[in-house]
């Protein structure tokens, strides 16, 4: 079980890192195609609020899992 937890630790970290360029590229593509206020607000919320939370928490969580911090959970 702890090997699976550690393996998934790598998966979470990769997801956390991978989401950053994906979201930014999608935002740039959509804003360039239609630079409306609505688009700006939506992508600002995603980039400023949602993405940092997802990335930071997945990367940190993944590193902890990889280090075996969650092998024994109370």
């Amino acid at each position, binding site marked *: 079980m702890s090997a*699976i*937890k550690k393996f*998934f630790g790598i998966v*979470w970290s990769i997801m956390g890192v991978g989401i950053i360029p994906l979201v930014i590229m999608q935002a740039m593509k959509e804003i360039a195609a239609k630079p409306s*206020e609505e688009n700006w*607000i*939506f992508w600002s*919320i*995603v980039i400023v*609020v*949602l993405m940092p*939370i997802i990335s930071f*928490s*997945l990367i*940190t*969580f993944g590193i*902890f*899992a990889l280090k075996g*911090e*969650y092998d024994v*959970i*109370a």
Partner: protein
Amino acid sequence: MAQKVTNVSQTEEISSTRRVIAASSVGTLIEWYDFYIFGTLAKIISEQFFPKDNPTAALLATLATFAAGFVIRPFGALFFGRLGDLIGRKYTFLVTLVIMGGSTFAIGLIPGYKTIGFFAPAIVFALRLLQGLALGGEYGGAATYVAEHSPAGQRGFWTSFIQTTATLGLFLALGVILTVRQTLGVETFSDWGWRIPFILSSLLVGVSVFIRMRMSESPMFVKMKKEGKTSANPLAESFKEKDNLKMVLIALLGATAGQGVVWYTGQFYALSFLQNACNVEFVQSNMIISIALLIGTPFFIVFGALSDKIGRKYIMMAGMLIAVLSYGPIYNNMYDTANLKTKNEVAEKTTVETKEAVKGTDTITTTVTKKTFDDGTTYKETKKLTVPLDEAKKAELAANDKLKPETKKEVTLPKSLYYKMIGLVLIQVIFVTMVYGPIAAFLVEIFPTRIRYTSMSLPYHIGNGVFGGLVPLISTRLVEASKEPGYSNPLTNMINSVTGHIGTPSGQADPLAGLMYPILIASVSFVIGMLYISNKTNNMDVE
């Protein structure tokens, strides 16, 4: 004799716990009421304070809607959580109640944009932020306070009463608004009557503050303080110490993020889907949600109590998994239930009425088409075309392709389909109660008493405010994106292949596209929760 003394002491303990639950729940319910009336009256508030022709005011309106929901709530969680771990639970969640009540009352008194100009939206925006801040501090305090009063082995049951308050707060808000609207009439309500629900809050908060003032501090906090074990810096201890930070992360990623999206999908997205994708008439769609919520609410307590017996993890994870697997079929069924293309029209009952009137500088042509279908469903389509009398203006609008009618579609379901729709929403509400019922007990039990308020509040408000709060925004966006040529949604493709439906034609919105966001978040949360969360019910004694 000894047996008698034990029974008396047990009865006193239960009665004291009940008082604690009642006092805490009433306050939390009122905070939710305050928070929801702003959202429910958003249209009127927007007309009064945020005129569309002023771009800054319109931007403030958008920010007021979103900022209070997800940016400010986590800050409130940190600010008041720290305070609660330093000075105590009782006074902290008393302060959040007063701030929430004061802000709500003040919103009801602010003169409109027409009277004080830009100050009106600016003040409303500031007060809305205060509401978000107070809400961020309230929940953690109430859950911690109740859990620290509850006997071991019954925390899931007792804290589940706090879990019902978010739903009951919505009921109270809708009930007060509908009663005032009914009593005063729509016009007076839109003019000044909308202020009454806000002003009424001061009365409700006053009663709740009085009740809370008479409550004693949490016994665990008192014991900890007496022993000098309180944290000197709860924020640093919660988020800088690895052992606590890793629990904050697991609470967020393995529980509250998934719970937040399931909660918002079942309670709010379902309504939006009924009204926008299925075009179910306004009152009927609200009734469907209200009845489903009313029937589903006791299940918060059922699953809270059950989590004391079989553990929190499996109930929450089962809720997430079943939600992920069944959202597609449920929403597909909801769509089909109201889909007119699958029904046979009774042609002889179709009526078309057209009226033309001159209003100010415009001619307004209203065309109402009414259709009846063989299963009893009725459909009303109102097209309103506004054409300027001025020929030059008319030509300009026509050139810009802006001479289009506003179309309002209303589907009214017959009794049998109405009940079926209630059933489909109720299933989702049950998922909500599975993930949300035990979560307060789960969160309070994974953190030590000295930093409990701070540590549990943040993942709760990020999970619900950010992950859950963004469901309407992101899901609506995904539905819009599905109109793009070449769009393909794996969920819809799978459902179509199973049911034999033909996919949505290119250029038309895919009604199921919006579900991809909650399904993705809940799936990740489920995997993390299953792998890393323990099903053990923790002891909460002062460490």
